[in-house]
C-alpha cells in the first residue's frame, strides 16, 4: 500500500501491522497531549510541583533526554571532524535520536513554563548571567542544526529523492555537513555544559553548588562529558531495541564495537573526573558551607547513599570497565548490560541534579521535601517517548536510515526466499 515510499530493496512489515503499532503508541501519545493541553489551559496546578519543587519530574526528563541525546553531537563530531568514517553506519540514526531528544526537550520546556506565551522573553530580555539563557540559545540553535542534519536523510526518501532539487539539496547538504557538525558540537558542548551549570551555579544550594573554572562550575564540564560518554550508549541501546523489534541486524558489529569502545573510554574518564569532583565537593566545598556529606543522604525516606553508589559505581565505573575491556565489550550480553547501566547512570545523575537538590533542606530548621508527580506530569513525560517511538518507526520505514541494512540482511532475506 505504501510500497512506493519504502526504501528500495528494504523489507518492511505490512502496512496494517505497522498502523496497529502506530495506533497503540499513538493512544499513549494522545494521553500525553491531553495532559499537555490541561497544563497549558489550566496552568501548572495540574502538576504536583510546589514551591519547594519548582523543578520536578519533567525537568528531570528534559535533562535526561538531552543527556542521552548527546549521542548525536558526539557521533557527529567523531564522524565529521575526527573523520571516524566507520560511524557513517550509525550517524543517521544518531541524528534522528538526537532530533527526537531535542524536540522533546523543547516541548517539555514549552509545557513547563508558567507563561508559555511569554517563552520568547528568554531571548528578548536575555540575562547573560543566567545559565538558562545560555541553555535556551544553544538548545534552540542546536535543534536547528539537528534539523538541518536530519533533512538530507528525509530527502533521501525514495519519492522525495526523485525531485531533482531535493536530490541535489540532499547531496550538497551532505557535502557541507562537517560545518554543521562542528557548529552542532560547539553548541552542544555549551548547552550540555550550561545545563550542568544550571545546578552548579546555585550557590544557595550546597548540594548543587560546585566551584569551577572562570564562570563555569565543574558541573558544566561534567555534564558535557557525561553526555558525550553516555549519549552513544543510548544510541546503541535504541539501535539494539530497534533491531529486536524489526528482527534485523541494522548496524554492523564493527561500528557497534567502535562506538562502544569510544563510549567506554569516555565513561571511564568521566567517572574518574566525577569521583574527583565528588570527593572535592564532599571534603572541601560542602564543609566550607557548614555541611557534612551525610546531611544530603540521611534523615529522609528516599535519598540514601545508595543513590550515590548506584550512580557512580554501579552505573558509572561498572559500564566503563565493561566497555573498555575488549572481551566484555564484544560479548553482546555484557555489552548490553553495560549500555543499559550507562543510560540508567546518566539519567540518575540528572535526577540527582534536579530533584535531590530540591529535596535537601538548607536552612537548619527546614525539613526534607519529597514529591510525587501527578498523572499529568507522568503523561507529559511519557509523551516524548511515544512521540520518539512513532518518529523512529516512520523514519525506519520510509527512510534509508541504516546504510548497512540491505547488506547485513542479505542472507536472511535469501533464506526467507527459499
Amino acid at each position: 500500500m505504501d510500497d512506493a515510499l519504502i526504501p528500495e530493496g528494504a523489507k518492511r512489515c505490512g502496512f496494517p501491522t505497522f498502523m496497529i503499532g502506530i495506533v497503540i503508541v499513538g493512544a499513549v501519545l494522545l494521553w500525553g497531549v491531553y495532559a499537555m493541553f490541561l497544563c497549558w489551559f489550566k496552568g501548572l496546578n495540574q502538576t504536583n510541583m510546589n514551591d519547594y519543587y519548582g523543578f520536578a519530574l519533567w525537568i528531570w526528563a528534559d535533562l535526561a533526554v538531552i543527556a542521552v541525546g548527546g549521542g548525536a553531537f558526539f557521533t557527529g563530531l567523531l564522524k565529521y571532524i575526527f573523520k571516524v568514517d566507520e560511524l557513517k553506519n550509525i550517524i543517521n540514526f544518531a541524528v534522528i535520536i538526537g532530533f527526537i531528544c531535542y524536540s522533546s526537550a523543547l516541548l517539555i520546556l514549552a509545557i513547563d513554563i508558567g507563561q508559555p506565551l511569554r517563552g520568547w522573553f528568554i531571548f528578548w530580555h536575555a540575562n547573560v548571567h543566567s545559565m538558562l539563557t545560555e541553555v535556551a540559545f544553544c538548545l534552540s540553535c542546536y535543534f536547528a542544526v539537528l534539523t538541518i542534519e536530519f533533512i538530507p536523510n528525509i530527502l533521501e526518501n525514495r519519492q522525495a529523492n526523485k525531485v531533482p532539487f531535493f536530490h541535489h539539496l540532499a547531496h550538497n547538504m551532505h557535502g557541507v555537513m562537517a560545518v554543521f557538525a562542528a557548529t552542532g558540537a560547539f553548541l552542544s558542548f555549551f548547552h550540555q555544559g550550561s545545563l550542568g551549570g544550571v545546578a552548579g551555579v546555585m550557590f544557595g544550594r550546597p548540594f548543587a553548588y560546585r566551584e569551577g573554572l572562570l564562570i563555569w562550575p565543574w558541573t558544566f564540564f561534567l555534564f558535557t562529558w557525561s553526555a558525550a560518554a553516555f549519549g552513544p550508549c543510548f544510541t546503541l541501546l535504541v539501535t539494539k531495541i530497534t533491531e529486536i523489534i524489526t528482527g534485523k541486524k541494522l548496524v554492523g558489529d564493527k561500528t557497534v564495537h567502535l562506538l562502544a569502545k569510544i563510549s567506554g573510554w569516555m565513561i571511564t574518564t568521566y567517572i574518574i573526573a566525577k569521583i574527583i569532583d565528588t570527593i572535592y565537593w564532599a571534603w572541601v566545598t560542602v564543609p566550607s558551607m557548614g555541611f557534612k556529606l551525610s546531611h544530603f543522604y540521611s534523615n529522609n525516606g528516599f535519598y540514601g547513599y545508595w543513590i550515590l553508589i548506584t550512580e557512580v559505581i554501579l552505573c558509572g565505573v561498572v559500564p566503563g570497565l565493561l566497555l573498555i575491556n575488549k572481551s566484555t565489550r564484544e560479548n553482546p550480553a555484557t555489552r548490553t548490560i553495560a549500555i543499559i547501566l550507562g543510560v540508567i547512570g546518566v539519567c540518575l545523575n540528572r535526577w540527582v541534579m534536579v530533584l535531590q537538590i530540591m529535596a535537601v533542606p538548607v536552612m537548619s530548621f527546614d525539613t526534607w521535601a519529597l514529591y510525587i508527580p501527578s498523572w499529568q506530569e507522568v503523561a507529559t513525560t511519557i509523551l516524548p517517548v511515544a512521540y520518539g517511538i512513532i518518529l523512529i518507526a516512520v523514519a525506519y520505514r520510509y527512510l534509508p536510515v541504516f546504510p548497512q541494512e540491505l547488506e547485513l540482511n542479505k542472507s536472511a532475506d535469501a533464506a526467507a526466499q527459499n
Partner: protein
Amino acid sequence: MIENKKAHKFGMVIDLDKCTGCGACMVSCMAENNVPFKEDESNKKDSITWMRVYRLTNGKSFPETQIAYIPRPCQHCGGIGDHGHSPCVSVCPATATDYGYDTGIVSQIYTRCFGCRYCMGACPYHARYFNWWDPKWPEGMENYLSPNVSPRMRGVVEKCSFCYHRYQLAREQAIVEDREIEEMEYQTACTTACPAGAIVFGDLNNPAHKVHQIVKPDPHPDPLNHKVVGKSRNPKVFRLLERLGTNTKVYYMSDREWVRKAGDNYLKGEWENVKTHHGASSSHG
C-alpha cells in the same frame, strides 16, 4: 546601574526574642500586597506567604522546651561579595527579577516573568512563590485590592519586594520637596504592623538609622570567608545561611545562643569558634 555614594541599602533587623509568632506581619504583608488565598492553605509548600514565620524549638522536653519564631521575608540578597548577584537574580534568564544597586532591593517584574521557576530553585530561603493558580477573590472582595501593587497572574513568581511601592511613594514626596527620604517615611507593611515592635527597618548605609545602629554592619569582607560582606559587629546579631555568601539584608537578633546557632549550618566544633567572631573590625578592636 552605577553605584553612587548616596546609594541606599535597605534592610531590617528582627528581634527574635521579641517576636511572638503572632502573624500580624504575615497578614499585613498579604493585605498590603494583594496576596491571594485559597480554600485550603494547609499545604505550606504551595501557600503564598511573602512573609513566612518559621517556628523552631530547641528540641528539649517540657518545661525546658523553647520556641523561636523566625519571620522570613525575602532576604534581599546582595550575592557573593555583595556585588548584586543574588542567587535568584543571577539565574533569571529573562531579567524578570533585578537587583537595585541604589536600594539593595531585589525586584520582581511579574509581567516579564515567564514562570521558569529557576529563581525558586536557586533561593535557599524558599522566599519565592509561584502562582500555581489564578488568583481568585470571593465575589466583591476584590474591592479591597490596592492599586499600588498589581495583582499577579497565574504562572509567574512573586515574592516580598520590601514594599517597594512604599519606597516609591516616599521618594516621590521627597523629590517634590527636594530632600532626602526620612527614616520613618519609608517603612514596610510588616514592620509597621508588628505589635511587638520586633522589626526595625531602614537604610543599613545610613549611620543615623536605627537598623544601622543595631546591626553595625562591617564594611570589610569577613576575613574568615571573603564571600561575606556586611557581617554584623553586634554579637547578638546574625544572618540566615550567612556562610553561603548570600549577603542578605535581613538580620536577626537574639540573646539565645541556640537561636543564633540555628541561623546557619556548622560542623561539629565550629560554632564554638565562630560564635565569638563578629566581623573583621571587631577582631582588631
